[in-house]
């Protein structure tokens, strides 16, 4: 990590862009996530894996402010964001996609991406009514940038003005990533991005993530089930099971970790 000087160091653990400390979430008596501490280095690609129901998405929802942690702290880029509102966390530079695509289905691909830029825009009610030169310019720039972002993820031509609901599944996934990128995030959270993709598409997404990191300098935190993608792309993997962290390390460590194998394949009969 030679480039720590470029990031705002702050009181984080060794310049991590994201750090969680003992984060716990309980729904009534059910502890969905228990005592998770992770640290994500800038410009890394990090995965969270685990069987269904392990608490991965709940963990994501806490990182993005949809849930408030029952206990623990979350720091983003040196600032404590525990329990902050989702829109504030987004404006600070965290963006996400969803496990089940959650596009605004009756808006066009372009409009979806423009909503993604909401936190970067300034136009207020009166400015919008009067359509002042500043608002006009902003609107034009945002539209232009949204087109570029869509082009970057591979949507162009008439697809840009197609309603999200009418796009193919793969393209909807792309628009969701573009919408997340529109807020110029430092940290991008992808919740099972390859779900429903065939091996070629997954491969392309893998390359795309690496490209994103290189060209846009984003850190990527990934929830993924496809082990080929996980092992191929991540530098660091955290494994959750029943809400607890059972292992972490580089892909090689994880592959050989007994508890991980057990969690995935079940214990062998004795």
């Amino acid at each position: 990590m030679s480039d720590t000087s470029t990031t705002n160091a702050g009181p984080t653990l060794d310049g991590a862009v994201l750090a969680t400390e003992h984060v716990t979430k309980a729904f009534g008596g059910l502890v969905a996530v228990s005592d998770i501490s992770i640290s994500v280095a800038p410009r890394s690609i990090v995965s969270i894996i685990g069987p269904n129901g392990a608490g991965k998405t709940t963990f994501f929802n806490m990182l993005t402010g949809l849930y408030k942690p029952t206990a623990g702290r979350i720091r983003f880029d040196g600032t404590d964001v525990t329990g902050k509102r989702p829109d504030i966390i987004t404006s600070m530079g965290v963006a996400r996609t969803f496990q089940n695509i959650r596009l605004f289905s009756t808006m066009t691909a372009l409009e979806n991406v423009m909503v993604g830029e909401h936190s970067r825009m300034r136009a207020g009610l009166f400015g919008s009514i009067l359509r002042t030169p500043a608002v006009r310019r902003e609107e034009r720039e945002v539209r232009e940038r949204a087109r570029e972002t869509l082009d970057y993820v591979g949507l162009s031509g008439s697809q840009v003005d197609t309603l999200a609901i009418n796009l193919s599944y793969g393209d909807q996934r792309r628009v969701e990533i573009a919408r997340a990128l529109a807020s110029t995030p430092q940290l991008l959270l992808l919740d099972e991005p390859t779900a429903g993709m065939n091996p070629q598409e997954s491969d392309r997404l893998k390359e795309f993530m690496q490209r994103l990191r290189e060209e846009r300098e984003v850190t990527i935190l990934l929830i993924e089930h496809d082990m080929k993608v996980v092992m191929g792309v991540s530098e660091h993997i955290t494994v959750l099971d029943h809400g607890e962290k059972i292992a972490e390390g580089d892909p090689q460590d994880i592959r050989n970790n007994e508890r991980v194998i057990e969690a995935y394949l079940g214990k062998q009969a004795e």
Partner: protein
Amino acid sequence: MTALRGLRKARWAKYVLPVTAVVAAALLPFFRPPLDGFLDDCILALIFVAMALGLNLIVGFAGLLDLGYVAFYAFGATAVGWWASNHFGGFNGDGLHIGVSSFTESQPGIHVNFLLLLIGAILICALAGAIIGLPTLRLRGDYIAIVTLAFGEIVGRFMQNGDEVTVFNDYALSNGRESIAPVDQIDLPFLDQFDSALNLRPYYWTMLGIVLVVLFVNLRVRDSRLGRAWVALREDEVAAASMGVPLVKTKLTAYAVGGAIGGLAGCFYGAYLGSVNANQFQFGFSILILAMVILGGLGSIWGVVLGAIALTFVNYRLIPDVLDQGAVNDLKNDLGLSFTFSEVAFGIFGFVLVLMMVMRPQGLLPERRRQIELTEGTEESVFEARI
């Protein structure tokens, strides 16, 4: 080149219909006598167009079902009752007068120029809109409807019993079940005071002006950052919040802007009727406006305009002047039926709405988005295949 020309033509053509409609609407009074029943209905239609556009902003754009919209009419009209009548007769000795004509100046009570009244109504209703919005922030769907409904009822009841509620020495909140009347005729700067007993035209043009302003605001806001945020919110609150849309602020803005428009129209309505009648602040009023929005097409600005005009004419012309008179009435009497259609007006609206829901659920002029919601992703094709 031809494609470019086609584009320019399309852009130009887009404005033809609205401009023609506005010019026709502006010239209409010249073809009618100054004091005319039809012109009266047209003024009512314009008032309801403004109100329906305001409600459409809350329900159609932001997707927050508001069943208490009558509250904004109540506030707007009450502004007139308080600040442009003899209601506070004992106030300040001879009364308080700001920018009013010489005749009104001689009256006791508070009398304020109509432009200031409009501004006051806008401010009060924007604030009231935000206040009504607050308790609904954590709610969704039907629950928002229930809370707003209750809010509308509270305001209505409060005004109906307002004669019992006094503030400072004996200033009653309202005149109870009796109206606050008469209220001042509209008085605009640089113009003579209007007189609804002689000439309705100035009232018509004033309200047309208000409608144009409201339309302008609606169109501008729809195609802005805020308008997109509202639609995003309507579609998926979780996704919208995660994309950086602040839920509280965005929702409250919808309530405030929608409420302000309702107050604006309500203020004019009070002044036009010449009285502020608390008995009108009923749940049925909210439903009437909502029916206009749904009839025209939820979320569609031009659809709502059409829906409001249509229902106003059904309510104020078709039912009292056509169905309850002449041939239809005779036929009804011959059949031995002893009711008037005015008494069952809500039954008629209900019937119209049911018809609409069956035949054209997306409204008269549907919004593009709503049309998709209602037609795509349904299992219509499966049903058709079965038939």
